[in-house]
């Protein structure tokens, strides 16, 4: 955990050793912050951090694509189901569940493509 942060130095930036992956949170840090949030009485904030821990393992484009897919009238039911399965497969269970819930709600409210 610490080494992950300690690599973020000016010298390493000057030497061109740092890239986008170094800006991602460590999922373990987010899990720890989720415990703090839960202990502080905010389980929703904790849930957000746990979803974020899943996104922290994805590259930027995958995160952007997930967001775009859930905007209104962007995806068909089948596309959301495929997205859900792929998230499930890569261990992003909470994000997968969110997509499942969205698919249900979008079907009922006419927000699918």
């Amino acid at each position: 955990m610490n080494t992950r942060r300690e690599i973020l130095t000016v010298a390493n930036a000057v030497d061109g050793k740092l890239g986008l992956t170094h800006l991602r949170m460590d999922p373990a840090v987010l899990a720890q912050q989720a415990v703090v949030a839960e202990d502080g009485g905010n389980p929703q904030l904790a849930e957000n951090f746990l979803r974020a821990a899943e996104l922290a393992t994805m590259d930027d484009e995958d995160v952007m694509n997930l967001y775009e897919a859930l905007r209104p009238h962007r995806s068909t039911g089948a596309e959301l189901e495929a997205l859900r399965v792929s998230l499930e497969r890569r261990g992003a269970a909470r994000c997968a569940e969110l997509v499942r819930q969205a698919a249900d709600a979008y079907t009922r409210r006419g927000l699918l493509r």
Partner: protein
Amino acid sequence: MQELGRFRVLDEKPVNLDGFSVADADLGLVAMHSPHDPSPSLVVDGDVVTELDGKPADAFDVIDEFIARYGIDLTVADEAMALDDAVLARMAVDVNVPRAEVVRLIGGTTPAKLARVLALMSPVEMQMAMAKMRARRTPSNQAHVTNQLDDPLLIAADAAAAVAYGFREVETTVPVLGDAASNAVALLIGSQVGTPGALAQCSIEEALELRLGLRGLTSYAETISIYGTEQVFVDGDDTPFSKAVLTSAYASRGLKMRVTSGGGAEVLMGAAERCSILYLESRCVSLARALGSQGVQNGGVDGVGVVASVPDGMKELLAENLMVMMRDLESCAGNDNLISESDIRRSAHTLPVLLAGADFVFSGFGSIPRYDNAFALSNFNSDDMDDFLVLQRDWGADGGLRTVSPQHLASVRRRAATAVQAVYRDLGLADYDDERVEQVVAANGSRDLPAGHPKMVAEAAASIEARQLTVFDVVASLHRTGYPEEAESIMRLTRERLGGDQLQTSAIFDDQFRVLSKITDPNDYAGPGTGYVPGDVRRAEIDAIRQQRSTAELTADQAEHQNHILVSDVEPARQGSDPREVCIGLSPAWGRSVWLSLCGLTVGEVLRQISAGLEEEGCVPRLVRVRSTIDVGLIGLTAARLSGSGIGIGLQGKGTALIHRRDLAPLANLELFSVAPLLTPQMYRELGKNAARHAKGMAPVPIFTGGTDESISARYHARAVALVALERRACEPGEPPVTVEVRRA
């Protein structure tokens, strides 16, 4: 009908440029309650909500759906929903009920329930509740930093100025979308000059904003807009589910975020579903909590004019902030939109928040001139900075800001502008010359700058995008070009962010990169003598406005006129017998330590005019120093009793003067010039003439001063107090009056 003078004047007042609407529930134009607001209800089957605020699950829109799934603490819902609205409202206000208990119960309330609780409170009760319910103990403030040219040097200079003033979050946006990346880089650099640790954001379209954040060019986001009706939400091109992904996406890269709501947006979009502004905002706040957002910007954002146009509008805005606090979220308390053309109304909007305290008193104080604000004009702007600093001092209230000296301001503005100049050259983004830097340092705003090449910023931004520059490129460039402190601060900020403590509720970094949040700096207000109190250092910052002056400073100009006349004692003052004699009683400090009166005339000139007036009417002045009192009435009466005519004049060094008669009570003088700052040589001469007329038994001629619009008290009383202190020091109680002679030096 005949035009009435009073209305002619009233019609010209700025408040009458504001629009005021007749409340209309069918349009949602109603603040605290609409007859169409649903009654609070919650039905739970197992751990599934089957009815929310009168709506069965199969009729849930996407907002209901999300709140029902995530937003309500079902373990306390039965208890909370069963409590009377008034009981909950009193618990929120009562200093004896701990914050945590209110938070626990409110967690089990539906949007309609919380709206009803808030609607019961008076504005003062809301302030009491805010003092207790805000999450972070130490208040803070956020600034808008934008300009019409998107000039990166100016953005950096203004960002450095903002953090010097004490803002801990700075927010930019663009008039021209293509400039966004340049603005973000300039803001990032400027915000770490002089005072490190402030968070920076660039508010643009959701997806583009996230992309800047993913590259580390911003450190927080707040314009993740949510709305209280499904129609408006979807028109905004999002759903609660997509917003939930955005919320988590920011957290996954260590970016603090909060959502933005704020009443009135649904009315503006014509889709308020006949509900009150407060109820729809309560839905937003419930949703914010359900999304896992740590905070909310509301209470005076884009729809503020709509809210302020209806009865109870300002109260509703305050209620929005309080709802956020009661749901245990960070309150970024609006005030970032100019609510009125009237200075009185816009102050009235902000003051309750300043006094009660909020995590951020403004969700965007316009740190730049009004015309340069690319969001909308803020409720307070750069030309209001002195007013705000004085308000903090007046009330001993911490609004997060402090005085900045011109030297320091110039120094950080120059450092920020040259840093951006260097980085833009180093990265091949743009070449700004040294003259531009100097223009930026001195500028009040973009109108003080030549426009420059119109495509320069767009090309710089396009280059940042084409090369997908990241925060690390900026850090490396700052280091290469001789800005190691700023490089280190930005890297430190990036590194600290990955620790995640700043993702907790209400987090800011102080200038030592310590996190202040609900976790590390929890609000512990529990009544008088508890909660946040500015420490000695902070108190001194609040008090030491640049306009304050010591007594010594206020009387420094006296020395410039010292000894312009010479006063010498002649003899102990005796009773005069000449019926044409009028004694002029001089105060203890007159011509001894006070040499300049408040109207700017020397004491010698004042005396010359009064004496000349007496002589023009055939009377003879005699000068008497009254040593035992500084009271101008007693001085005048003493002079009158010594005077052969029985008429005397009392004269203080600061210029206050009156006519007295020997048989009157001390306070019952014949004529009084009480407003010394407005007096003229002619008026003193007329005073002398009238004293003579009294002496001769003639009727005096009224002296009309014409009145004034000036706040005499505000302008002059600090100086008057300093001069009175000199009189008191010169006073010799018990010493008899002395006849004196005054000569020009």
